[in-house]
């Protein structure tokens, strides 16, 4: 480098300076670190629990897309969908929000929400656009759980809905399904929420949920019945059709009611077990706590007598046949028909007059007295059972209790478990015997003798007729002239009557008859009235507004 160049280089000036060893620039990484750590801490603090849900099929469930929602609010998201280890289902892992961490308890429920169309309604339409999501229902337990098995069908009732759950024991499920309506006086009061075969497989347990205002109408005396389909009954008052509504008709349903005769009771506790009856009539039937069992022995045919056939007293229902069979007596080697019946005295007492009802009720409570009364009726009044034909067409028989004062004496042995009730032979074989009798007697009639007698009588009749003929001829000669003169007089009388009638005619309908004149005047009046009416009609047609505004002032 040349010296001259160096001279041209300017000399730096000195200014006192403070030097700091640590640069202020370090604030930047510290700030970045603080922010990053802050975000990380916030993430960790808001981190909710991770749960596993076992599904049968991952129907529309996608990792990172499918949400878990509760009351339509997102509470989590599916992070992983994979086959279960035993490949019998799908394991869905979901990250839940911290807020719901304490709701994830043992009996919390998860299910896939997807569009569903059933007979009783359409649900989940929103998922058509947004895709399926997982529904959630809180449980009551406090024991936390992290692995859940999803329900296959969404629960109808999610936690918190006011109402009560009941269990119905049904013989079979019928057309019921989850969501089938429950009716109370034809108002929808709840739904079937579950059904299951009971442990021994004998009955179906149907779990129902009755919504809040209606659940207090369910008391221990309430009856439930299957309201599916139509109930058609024919009575003396005509045909009556009963159904709980169109949905019940299509999708099945359950109805409940408390019979009027049942005593008032407090609402039933939740999960009370009831019987599901097959129809309304069965459900609402009055119970027969007092039953008397009898056995009846018949020597006649029991064809047409079936279990359940009615037992009547003076034609009123009093019981039913419970068993039909045979009775073999080894000592006499005889076989006879045996019918067991149950007799409900309460039903007869219910038909007593108000004033006698109390008497009847005391009788019901007192067994010896009841036995004594029966004994008296049988022994003194001749109360007997008899087979009768219920229908000539079907040949069905029923048992009638009636009074046969002439019946042979009989007793009731109360010592037996099922006392034998005395019977009388049916009138049906009687009738047959009588007809046979009549035919036999008819056979014995002396038809030959009757025939010869008849021919004799005919000859006598012929003679009588001949003598009558002679009498008539005699009459002709004497009576005829007299009759002729009577006719002449009659003709004269008719002629004078004719004259009178002609006079009357002239007064009423002659040309200038007064009545005629007045009639003509009246007709002219009517003609005039009709003419003015026509004028009015014409005017109205031209000026219809005059109906409202009146007749306009005519201009001169």
């Amino acid at each position, binding site marked *: *480098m040349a010296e001259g160049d*160096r001279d041209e*280089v*300017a*000399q*730096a*000036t*000195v*200014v006192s*300076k403070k*030097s700091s*060893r*640590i*640069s202020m*620039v*370090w604030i*930047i*990484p510290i*700030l*970045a*670190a603080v922010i*990053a750590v802050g*975000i*990380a801490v916030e993430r960790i603090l808001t981190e909710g629990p991770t749960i596993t849900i076992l599904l049968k099929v991952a129907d529309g469930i996608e990792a*990172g*897309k499918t*949400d878990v929602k509760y009351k339509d609010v997102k509470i989590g998201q599916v992070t992983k969908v994979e086959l279960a280890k035993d490949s019998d289902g799908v394991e869905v892992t979901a990250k839940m929000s911290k807020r719901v961490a304490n709701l994830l308890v043992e009996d919390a429920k998860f299910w896939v929400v997807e569009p569903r169309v059933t007979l009783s309604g359409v649900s989940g339409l*929103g998922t058509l*656009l*947004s*895709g399926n999501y997982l529904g959630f229902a809180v449980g009551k337990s406090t024991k936390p759980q992290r692995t859940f098995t999803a329900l296959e069908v969404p629960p109808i009732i999610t936690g918190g809905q006011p109402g009560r759950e009941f269990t119905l024991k049904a013989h079979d499920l019928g057309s019921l399904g989850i969501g089938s309506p429950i009716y109370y006086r034809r108002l929808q009061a709840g739904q079937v929420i579950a059904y299951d075969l009971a442990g021994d497989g004998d009955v179906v347990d149907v779990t129902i949920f009755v919504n809040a205002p209606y659940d207090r109408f369910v008391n221990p005396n309430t009856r439930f019945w299957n309201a599916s389909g139509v109930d058609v009954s024919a009575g003396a008052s005509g045909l009556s059709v009963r159904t709980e509504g169109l949905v019940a008709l299509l999708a099945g349903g359950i109805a409940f009611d408390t019979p009027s005769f049942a005593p008032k009771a407090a609402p039933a506790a939740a999960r009370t077990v009831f019987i599901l009856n097959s129809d309304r009539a069965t459900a609402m039937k009055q119970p027969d706590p007092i039953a008397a069992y009898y056995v009846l022995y018949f020597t006649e045919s029991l064809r047409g007598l079936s279990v359940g056939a009615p037992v009547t007293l003076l034609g009123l229902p009093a019981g039913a046949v419970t068993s039909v069979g045979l009775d073999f007596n080894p000592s006499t080697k005889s076989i006879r028909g045996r019918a067991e019946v149950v007799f409900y005295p309460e039903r007869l007492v219910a038909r007593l007059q108000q004033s006698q009802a109390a008497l009847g009720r005391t009788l019901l409570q007192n067994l010896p007295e009841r036995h004594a009364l029966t004994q008296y009726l049988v022994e003194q009044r001749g109360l007997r059972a008899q087979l009768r034909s219920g229908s000539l067409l079907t040949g069905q028989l029923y048992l009638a209790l009636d009074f046969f004062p002439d019946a042979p004496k009989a007793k009731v042995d109360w010592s037996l478990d099922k006392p034998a009730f005395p019977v009388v032979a049916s009138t049906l074989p009687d009738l047959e015997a009588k007809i046979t009798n009549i035919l036999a007697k008819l056979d014995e009639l002396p038809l030959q003798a009757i025939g010869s007698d008849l021919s004799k009588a005919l000859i006598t009749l012929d003679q009588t007729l001949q003598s009558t003929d002679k009498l008539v001829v005699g009459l002709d000669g004497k009576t005829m002239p007299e009759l002729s003169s009577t006719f002449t007089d009659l003709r004269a009388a008719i002629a004078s009557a004719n004259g009178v009638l002609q006079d009357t005619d002239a007064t009423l309908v002659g040309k200038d008859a007064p009545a005629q004149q007045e009639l003509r005047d009246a007709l002219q009046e009517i003609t005039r009235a009709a003419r003015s009416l026509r004028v009015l009609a014409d005017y109205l047609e031209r000026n219809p507004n005059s109906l409202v505004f009146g007749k306009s002032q005519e201009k001169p």
Partner: protein
Amino acid sequence: MTTATALRAGLVSCEACGLLSRAATATELGHCPRCGSELAWRRHESIQRTWALVIAAAICYIPANVLPVLTTTALGSTDSDTIMGGVVFLYTSGSWPLALAVLVASVMIPLGKLMALTYLLITVQRGVPGNGRDRTRLYRLVEVIGRWSMLDVFVDTFTVALVQLQPLMFVKPGPGVVFFAAVVVLTMLAAMSFDPRLIWDAGSTREGNHG
């Protein structure tokens, strides 16, 4: 090295106006006689500043890749995408060139810049001599490509501004994009604060002043 440098000749160039002047004393360089700005042998606190910015960028790089950069709400369902999520999505949906472009521009370049700057800083601090030419080339590359990493941020802002079909579909920026932008800006600043002359100082007799 026998090459004459301004440092060895006791000359210093003003960072602001470029005027060459002689140092006032050996320890106190003094101020530029023309514009009055403080003189330094090398860029002021170059290594310390660069380190700080590189570390800050490295910290921001983690949330930039972990947090979502874009939140798409379409028909009621919300999707959050991170940068790598977008790359994977593009790749699986068949457009691998686009996936590669995003991967290079948004993931590899910022990471490469951070690594390159760290390498330069360490070698300079340790006073490693040799391959100074290569390191200078690396530094130039870092400085030139730095601004192109903002591609992701631009795409993000355009998408957010354009896709606003309110109830049906809308896009919101995620927190990741802020960190991503911070990474890009911080690495650019770091590259600017690094003094490439320090690379050559290692072989020279006099220690560069990096304090």
